[in-house]
């Protein structure tokens, strides 16, 4: 029995490491010279260098990451501002209308981005906000708002009714009831929603590549531009990809539990 358990554990670890290998390989290649990075057989021992990072940096990576950060943080804040009251309104006294509105919100998440990109592109063009990072942030807020409202509602539903009712009897207005009583209780949930929305925005490529060209370009289109580059820069690509993914990887590692709940839209406790 003990041997069997040990074997299963060993197998688990082997499979996990195989799965993780591409990520590990990306981080290793990031610190290799181009010759080491493209060597066959692959080099696991090498003299680390920052050449790849230097090249990514010289191509203006800092600007693109700053754009990504601006659009993602902006979208996250706007979403929280809209979704907190929105989800609260939908979490109390479920009536037929609430269900219809909920259905409307979830259905907008089913709407492929492809269905709205053309008008958005045309409107942005005529308003002169193509390649504008604020405009991109607004679009990110719009496409992630439904999922945020859904997740947040599930957290609000868990607030014990008695607490809210007690506050109401004490004469707390809606604003006080929400900010002083309910919000402190669902803060971890709100953090989870914020994190997920941030990740989705940070990783988004389709809209970014269509709605931005240079000034407002974000990290994903910048990474994709390596594809058309001449020659192979595996070291540089890996360095750029490492920088681009590291913030989200760390955030995801730290907030695993909240991530699960949020991703399953509250259907998983």
């Amino acid at each position, binding site marked *: 029995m003990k041997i069997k*358990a040990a074997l*299963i*554990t060993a197998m*688990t*670890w082997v499979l*996990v490491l195989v*799965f*993780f290998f591409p*990520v590990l*390989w*990306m981080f290793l*290649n990031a610190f290799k010279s181009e010759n080491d990075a*493209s060597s066959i057989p692959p080099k696991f021992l090498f003299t680390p260098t920052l050449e790849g990072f230097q090249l990514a940096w010289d191509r203006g990576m800092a600007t693109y990451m700053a754009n990504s950060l601006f659009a993602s943080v902006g979208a996250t804040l706007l979403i929280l501002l*809209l979704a907190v*009251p*929105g989800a609260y*309104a939908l979490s109390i006294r479920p009536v037929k209308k609430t269900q219809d*509105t909920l259905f*409307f919100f979830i259905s*907008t998440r089913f*709407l*492929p981005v492809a*269905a*709205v*990109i*053309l*008008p*958005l592109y045309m409107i942005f063009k005529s308003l002169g906000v193509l390649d504008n990072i604020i405009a991109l942030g*607004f679009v990110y*807020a*719009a496409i992630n708002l*439904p999922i945020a409202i859904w997740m947040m509602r*599930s957290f609000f539903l868990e607030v014990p009714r008695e607490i809210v009712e007690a506050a*109401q*009897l004490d004469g707390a207005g*809606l604003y006080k009831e929400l900010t002083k009583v309910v919000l402190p209780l669902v803060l971890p949930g709100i953090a989870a929603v914020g994190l997920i929305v941030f990740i989705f925005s940070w990783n988004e*490529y*389709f809209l970014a590549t269509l709605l931005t060209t240079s000034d407002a370009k974000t990290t*994903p289109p910048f*990474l994709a531009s390596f*594809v058309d580059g001449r020659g192979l820069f*595996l070291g540089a*690509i*890996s360095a750029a*990809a490492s920088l*681009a*993914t590291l913030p*989200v*990887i760390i*955030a*995801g*590692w730290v907030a*695993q539990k909240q991530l*699960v709940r949020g*991703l*399953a*839209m509250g*259907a*998983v*406790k």
Partner: protein
Amino acid sequence: MARDQVSAPPEPLSLEKIRKRQDWQRRSILLPALIFAIVMTQVPFLVTIGYSTFNWNLLKPNDFAFVGFDNYVTVFTSGDLWPSIVATVLITTLAVVLSLVIGLFFAILLDRSFRGQAIARTLLITPFLIMPAAASLIWKYSMFDTNIGVINWVVSSLSLPPIEWSTDYPLATVVIVLVWQFTPFMMLILLAGLQSQSKEILEAASVDGAGVWRTFQWITLPHLRTYIEISVLLGTIILLQVFDPIAIMTKGTGGTKTLSYLLYERAFIGLNVGEAAAYGVIAVVLTILVASAALRTMFKVFLDGGGK
């Protein structure tokens, strides 16, 4: 009289009264979100439907005219639509099913307690956190590449002929990257499901002499049903829109031209707004068809606010 009124005890505030008084207020705080969603997603969608009835090519601005359903006729007879629907459905189905099966397998493995369990789980969820554009690049160059890719190094170490992934198996490359990214997603939700199983029932089953497989089949799987439905639904919604690995790895070659990518090509390379809009509308219809069946089951779950 005035004195009477003053001394009369204030009417006690009942919850019912408070609720009624605040009812409009409670509903109105939804309005900003609702208006924002309508303006940014619903209105553009209606405009897309409008666009799809015009002959509108940015290269030929003088030919702009209302053409009714002509774009749809063009789209349906062009021979591009059907392969694209097949590609979309095939890629989505393969990716969802494979990542669900592998995800379930990993969830079962990680549900045991063993040394380094938390670290193993943390490493395993990482692919899901990787930016899809970065994942596609890394796989394209460091894994699949014929000359310097790790996979072909392994293959040739086994003295097998190298695999030309990008030319011979473009669909497989896309599906592999998607499965790699979505397996952790499925695993996380299913693991949460496994861990919410009642230990007593499992023990009772084992006392009753039910074997591992029978316990899994009769107790665990039914319990996991909700979680499987959720992960399949969410995975399907996201994957039906897949664009990033196709744009970066295959550019739509070899049966990987999904509806998203086809629309992108028509609109932003061909500059044919009318036809692209028609593809957009068709993409929506397809999404609704595929997802609504699943949604009807799921919606009940969501409304109840959670699984068991």
